[in-house]
C-alpha cells in the first residue's frame, strides 16, 4: 500500500510534467522552475520507495508512512505551484497572441492615421488607450499570482488550498481583463472600418 501510494503520486507528477512539456506560454526559466520542483519530489518518492524494501516490522511501516506524511505538505505545495504554472502558461499563450495583434493594429493605425478625420483619430486613440489599460491590469494580476505562487509554502494543506483557490480566482480575473481588452480591440477594428 505504501509503495502504491508513492506510485500514484509519481504518476501524477509525471502527468504535470507532461503538461509542462506541452506548454507553449511559459518562459524557459519558468518551465525549468516547475520541472525542478517535480524532479525533487520524484527523487524523494523514489528514495522513499527504495527504503520500503528494508521494512521488516509494523513499526518500520509506520515510520515509513510518517516520512511521507511529514513531507506531504511540501509535495502538495509543489503540485499546486505547478498547476498554477500551467494555468499561467495557458494565459500567457493568449496574452502573446493578443500582444501580436495589438502591435499590428497599432502599426496599421499609425500608417493610416492621415486617412481619418481628427474626431475619428481621437476615437481611435481612446480605444488604444483603453486597450493598453486593460492589458496593464492583466499584467498586474499575473505578477501578483506569480509572487504568491513562488512563496507558496505552509505546514497545513488547507492553507495551501486556500492560497491556491485565491490564485485561481485571480487567474480568472486576469483572463477577464484579457477578454475585455480583446473586446476593445474589436471595437477599434469597427472604428477603423468606417471613414466617419
Amino acid at each position, binding site marked *: 500500500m505504501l509503495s502504491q501510494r508513492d506510485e500514484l503520486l509519481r504518476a501524477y507528477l509525471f502527468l504535470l510534467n507532461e503538461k509542462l512539456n506541452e506548454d507553449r506560454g511559459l518562459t524557459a526559466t519558468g518551465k525549468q522552475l516547475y520541472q525542478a520542483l517535480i524532479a525533487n519530489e520524484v527523487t524523494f518518492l523514489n528514495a522513499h520507495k527504495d527504503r520500503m524494501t528494508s521494512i521488516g516490522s509494523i513499526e518500520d511501516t509506520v515510520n515509513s*508512512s510518517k516520512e511521507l506524511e511529514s513531507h506531504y505538505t511540501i509535495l*502538495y505545495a509543489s503540485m499546486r505551484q505547478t*498547476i498554477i504554472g*500551467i494555468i499561467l502558461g495557458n494565459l500567457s499563450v493568449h496574452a502573446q*497572441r*493578443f500582444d501580436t495583434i495589438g502591435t499590428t*493594429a497599432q502599426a496599421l493605425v499609425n500608417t*493610416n492615421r492621415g486617412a481619418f478625420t481628427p474626431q475619428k483619430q481621437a476615437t481611435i486613440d481612446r480605444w488604444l488607450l483603453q486597450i493598453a489599460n486593460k492589458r496593464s491590469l492583466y499584467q498586474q494580476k499575473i505578477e501578483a499570482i506569480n509572487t504568491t505562487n513562488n512563496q507558496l509554502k505552509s505546514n497545513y494543506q488547507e492553507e495551501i488550498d486556500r492560497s491556491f483557490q485565491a490564485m485561481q480566482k485571480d487567474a480568472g480575473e486576469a483572463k477577464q481583463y484579457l477578454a475585455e481588452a480583446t473586446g476593445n480591440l474589436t471595437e477599434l477594428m469597427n472604428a477603423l472600418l468606417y471613414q466617419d
Partner: protein
Amino acid sequence: MDNPIITNQIPVIPVQAVPTLSTAAIIMQKLRSPWAGIAAIIAIFLIGSLIVSGTKSTTPTTLVPTPTPTTIPTPTPQRTPSAIASQSAFQALDTSVQSLANDLNGLSIRDPSLSPPVLDLPLGFSNN
C-alpha cells in the same frame, strides 16, 4: 197526464260554506310555493342586469386610438467604408481578433483533470 208546473221562481240552491282566507294569508301561501321562489330569483336577476346595463351605458365610451402601421422607412445612415477597410492586412487582423475573442471565451481556468490525488495519509495503526 200531469202537466209540469212552471213557476217563475228560481230554485234556491243551497250554497256550501267556503272557508274564507284573508288577503295577506293568500299572498303568504303563494309566496311559499317553489315557483314563487324561482320567479323572485329571475326577477332579481333581471332587475340587477338592467341596473348594470344602465350604469354601463351612462359611462362615456372612450375611443382608444389603434396604431396603424406606417409604411415610412426609417432612414439608415449611409456609412462610408474607410480606405483601410479593403486592405488585406486589415481583414486578416479582423479575423485574428475574432479568433482570439472566441478562444478566450472558451478558455477555462479550472482544469479538473489536474486535481491532485486524494490520499489518506495516516495509516490507521493503533500506535500511529
